[in-house]
């Protein structure tokens, strides 16, 4: 189906090739996972398959490529569109019309299909994707997961031979991501569609995958059947900075302890079969209970409600106290009020009802700019934090507003650049940095002001495991200086490993607030994989609030 022979591609003006001597061959009906750290050439690889590289993104191309019997190089993207369907990261930026039906028809119309054929395929794809109830809905009212399903439907309607998805769930919450992957699994299983997915969070997708390809620095490092890769190539995967799914991590932890189980499990059910004898022996809980000294209050939220001008109630009588030196994680579905809540802490929003005190002082009359001395807020999309001409100036921005003098700004700037590993980029234009670098810069720019309360909204979205670990280390250091850290995230596995106090929000209310072992156990969507694994073994005395592979391994 797909053959790449010694493909090398270098973007115009780039210092080194994005793809470097890539040889690959993919068979019809395969489900292929392409992974790798950011900048490894994953997206470029996808774009060679339909000719976007080199036709849309200019550069130097060498080598031979064949997709479904065609050469994308000579055929061009337009012709390849009917063979290779491509779904991108951000659903917002691939929608060109305003409602579901129009969106699905757009590609078919471009291919000049007859009207009755379009009608048939429209029905077909709506049913295949399970979105026929959305057919007349305007796109801007759909959730991220729904939008991404519409994007896939719009591609499926073209009856492509290959479906290529470039990090299709990085903008979605766990439920949305699960939905999308299970549909891909079904398309591959029942229709025999060849599917290629680029992704660096493996745990939700690995069960559907046949073939595992790891890219690094534009080269193919691993290209193996997925079982083999997960069993025998773990060191290479970890070295590239990609994290393992917790079940597979457990498998290897046990292996290191000399406990042989069956092959690495991909689903929770498989995990139970494989680990059953071990799990029944897991006995004592090992984690320390959260220390219960009462720290001085940093954030006091009293009975706060908020409604948008449209009348939509986003917060309903929220009460919350957070102490100095605490690290608090806020979780919850999209639109459950998480971001709305934290925007109240630096006066971007004013409560309709209720009171907020920061560091013991009422903030009702302060401006957001005044609040910035105490509360630092890092937004979801680092792009929105980057408005200066160089990395150096970006870090100086907040300090200048604060009136810090120039020599001090230079001193702090140098320290932050060093701390975040950005020194070599000091004079670069911030928007040219890679995703991970932008994320670090946005954080550095906010942390330069040393706010007493640091809030991060979805900081780990789209970044690989190694960078997540790095981020958590920085945050942990920061709170050791008795600073408060508030983290909004969907990343269940990250919280299971690094969280302490976890707050779960839904429909503008705080549903649960407590230690992670209490909040994250015994659920489905907000429980980590390992917890779902051990839940049924409670009757054998296995602690039902175990969250991570490390905890299981240490409890043996």
């Amino acid at each position, binding site marked *: 189906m797909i053959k790449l022979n010694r493909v090398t591609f270098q973007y115009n003006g780039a210092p080194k090739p994005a793809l470097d001597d890539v040889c690959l061959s993919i068979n019809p009906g395969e489900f292929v996972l392409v992974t790798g750290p950011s900048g490894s050439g994953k997206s470029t690889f996808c774009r060679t398959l*339909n000719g976007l590289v080199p036709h*849309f993104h200019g550069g130097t191309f060498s080598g031979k490529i064949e997709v479904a019997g065609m050469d994308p190089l000579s055929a*061009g*993207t*337009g012709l390849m*569109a*009917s063979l*290779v*369907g*491509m779904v*991108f990261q951000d659903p*917002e*930026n*691939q929608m*060109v*019309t*305003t*409602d579901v*039906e*129009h969106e699905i*028809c*757009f*590609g*078919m*119309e*471009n*291919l*000049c299909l007859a*009207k009755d054929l*379009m*009608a048939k395929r*429209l029905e077909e794809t709506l049913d295949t994707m399970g979105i026929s109830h959305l057919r007349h809905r*305007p796109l*801007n*009212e759909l959730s991220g997961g729904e939008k991404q399903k519409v994007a896939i439907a*719009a591609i499926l309607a*073209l009856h492509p031979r290959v479906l290529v998805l470039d990090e299709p769930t990085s903008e979605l919450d766990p439920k949305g991501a699960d939905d999308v992957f299970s549909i891909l699994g079904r398309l591959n299983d029942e229709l025999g569609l060849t599917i290629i997915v680029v992704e660096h969070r493996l745990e939700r997708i690995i069960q559907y995958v046949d073939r595992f390809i790891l890219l690094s620095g534009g080269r193919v490092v691993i290209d193996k059947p997925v079982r083999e890769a997960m069993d025998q190539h773990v060191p290479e995967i970890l070295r590239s900075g990609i994290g393992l799914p917790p079940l597979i991590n457990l498998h290897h932890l046990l292996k290191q302890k000399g406990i042989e189980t069956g092959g690495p499990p991909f689903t929770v059910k498989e995990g139970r079969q494989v680990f059953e004898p071990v799990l029944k022996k897991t006995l004592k809980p090992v984690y320390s209970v959260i220390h219960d000294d009462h720290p001085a209050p940093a954030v006091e939220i009293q009975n706060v409600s908020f409604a948008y*001008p449209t009348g939509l109630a986003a917060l309903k009588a929220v009460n919350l106290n957070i102490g100095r030196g605490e690290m608090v994680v806020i979780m919850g579905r999209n639109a459950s009020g998480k971001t709305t809540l934290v925007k109240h802490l*630096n006066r*971007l929003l004013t409560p309709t009802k209720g009171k907020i005190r920061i560091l013991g002082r009422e903030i009702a009359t302060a*401006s*957001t*700019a005044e609040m*910035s*001395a105490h509360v*630092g*807020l890092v*937004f979801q999309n680092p*792009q*929105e*934090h*980057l*408005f200066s001409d160089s990395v150096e100036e970006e870090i100086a*921005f*907040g300090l200048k*507003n*604060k009136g810090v003098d120039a020599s001090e700004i230079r001193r702090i700037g140098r320290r932050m650049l060093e701390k975040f590993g950005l020194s070599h980029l000091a004079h670069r234009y911030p*928007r040219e940095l890679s995703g991970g670098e932008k994320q670090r810069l946005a954080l550095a*720019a*906010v942390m330069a002001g040393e706010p007493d309360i640091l809030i991060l909204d979805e900081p780990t979205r789209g970044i690989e495991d190694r960078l997540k670990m790095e981020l958590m280390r920085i945050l942990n250091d920061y709170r050791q200086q008795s600073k408060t850290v508030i983290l909004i995230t969907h990343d269940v596995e990250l919280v299971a490993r690094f969280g302490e106090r976890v707050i779960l929000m839904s429909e503008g209310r705080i549903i649960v607030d407590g230690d992670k072992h209490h909040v994250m156990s015994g659920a489905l969507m907000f429980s980590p994989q390992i917890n779902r694994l051990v839940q049924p073994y409670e009757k054998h005395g296995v602690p039902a609030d175990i969250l991570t592979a490390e905890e299981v391994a240490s409890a043996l």
Partner: protein
Amino acid sequence: MPALNFSYREGATAVHGLNPVVKLIWAVSIVIMAMIIDHPLVLGLIFLSTVPMAVAAGVQREWSVFIRLALWMGIIVVLINALASTSGSHLIWQSGINLPLLGPLNLTLEALVYGVFMAVRLLAIISAFTIMAFILHPDDLLMVMLKMKLPYKTAMLTTLSTRFVPVLLEDAGRIADAQKSRGLEMDRGNIINRIHRRSSILLSLLASSLERTIQIAEAMEARAFGSSARRTFYHHLTFSRLDGVMMAGLVLMLAASVYGAITGLFEFQYYPFLNGFIMPPYGWVLTAAILAVLVGQIPAARLKKEVDFDQA
């Protein structure tokens, strides 16, 4: 301040169900009439006829934001005209100041009335366009443009850019939030400083919308956009007999008002003294007919909804 969001509002009102061509002709007729009719009273009535339309479409709240803005602009027009124009004959107020080039700074009745007339003209045009933007679905607009034989790529670009107006506004809001959170005082200091700060949002916005544009172009390319010179269409504009009657009514109304304007029926003299308030009787008959057709869109829309429902 409520956001100035100039984009389609989803709604299930009868007015939303009007044929897109009817919506377009309705708005364009009002704009044309506002340009050619000089009689202040007739123009005022035409503006007022748009109010029930906004209410019937359920967009009065969003609409009033724009009307308030237009009112402010109108007040400025009245002030400038009143002070700058020296052609009137009835003096209301004399400042005694002599301005270079403009002559004595006086306020005359005629200049005041003319200023008000200009403001009403502005209100009528803004009102009609705002309502149309709220009730005309961008995809429908695309189809209307195609019916008018506009090239597909041009039409597509137009609707695509209207779709991204709300997205851009949201982007701008988020960038402003991020800057405020990093200690930038947006609303303090003198006006020059404020403008300077606001302009830094624009630069960021420009950069991020360029990135958006590239991604969208890529996604369109990957779905065969422009791969062949022609294309097919799944959705078509359909016209019922009632739509035909409504369009004919609007076109007839427009033709009559153009005829009236050419023959001097709606003529009005502002300078040097006001003259023309008294129209011949058939002038008033024509005015009544114009208003009847404009406001008549609402009952006609309700009728259409019923007819469509019966046929479905």
